[in-house]
């Protein structure tokens, strides 16, 4: 196995264009909120969300991971990338919110491969999903680092 655990080091700088539109649904927000044990009423009750100034149910702070991981799948499933998903560990994650994500939003994500570096016998891959509305308003930037473990890691 190479020093990059089989991962193609030339991936850095690659951009995967926005794929399918993701429509944010009220029930999806409620289900995600329950799944992370979030209890704020703005995730469940439209009137509570509106009283805080949101147009509709507000997505929890890490909800954008759904959209980011769909974008990441383009890279992970790209045969040219050489990523063995069974050896992937999530190492770092960041969300920067440019505006709240609310039910009814139609979002797309453009995926950037920012960095690929050897780490031990494995490879650390940093990707960035630029999430925006279909009208082009920036919604969130998510940054994710995954470690593809090499032999013995």
């Amino acid at each position, binding site marked *: 196995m190479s020093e990059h655990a089989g991962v193609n080091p030339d991936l850095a700088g690659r951009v995967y264009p926005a794929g399918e539109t993701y429509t944010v649904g009220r029930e*999806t927000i409620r*289900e*995600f909120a*329950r*799944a*992370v*044990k*979030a*209890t*704020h009423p*703005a*995730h469940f009750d439209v009137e509570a969300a509106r009283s*805080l100034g*949101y147009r509709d149910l*507000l997505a*929890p*702070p*890490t909800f954008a*991971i*759904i959209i980011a*991981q*769909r974008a990441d799948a383009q890279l992970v499933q790209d045969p040219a990338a050489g990523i063995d*998903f*069974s*050896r992937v*560990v*999530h*190492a*770092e*994650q*960041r*969300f*920067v*919110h440019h505006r*709240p994500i609310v039910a009814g939003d139609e979002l797309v994500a453009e995926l950037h491969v920012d960095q690929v570096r050897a780490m031990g016998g494995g490879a650390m891959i940093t990707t960035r999903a630029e999430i925006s509305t279909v009208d082009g308003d920036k919604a969130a930037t998510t*940054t994710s680092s995954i470690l593809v473990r090499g032999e013995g890691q």
Partner: protein
Amino acid sequence: MSIALDTLSVGQEIGSATIEVSRADLVRYAGASGDFNPIHWNGRFADQVGLPGVIAHGMFTMGAAVQVVTDWIGDPGAIVDYQTRFTKPVVVEDVDGPGARIEVTGAVGAIDEANGTVRVDLTVTAAGQKVLVKAQAVVRTR
């Protein structure tokens, strides 16, 4: 929301919580997030890939830990930046009831008067070990 920055000091605790995690919680998170990696629900698979057992999604822990910040600020939409590193897995035992407990404490890490933001630093442990490191949430206070 309307937290007066001049009432805060760096190091001040903003809240704490214990999150009980069961295998059912991991199944629920898998369904809600779309992350069906078997290491989060299949013990045989977790053993085969050398893990100490079925482990929680890092994103479950990150998503649940931020509740102390939401409870403090009163508006989840005020959290404009949230990041962490995942350092140790949270092993969730196959038992009736909670298979793991995650302890979360939040403290003021930095105050930015010019931008009206506060950085909250989260200490997140399970079984006595830090499972998130550099877990930081920046909240808008106006």
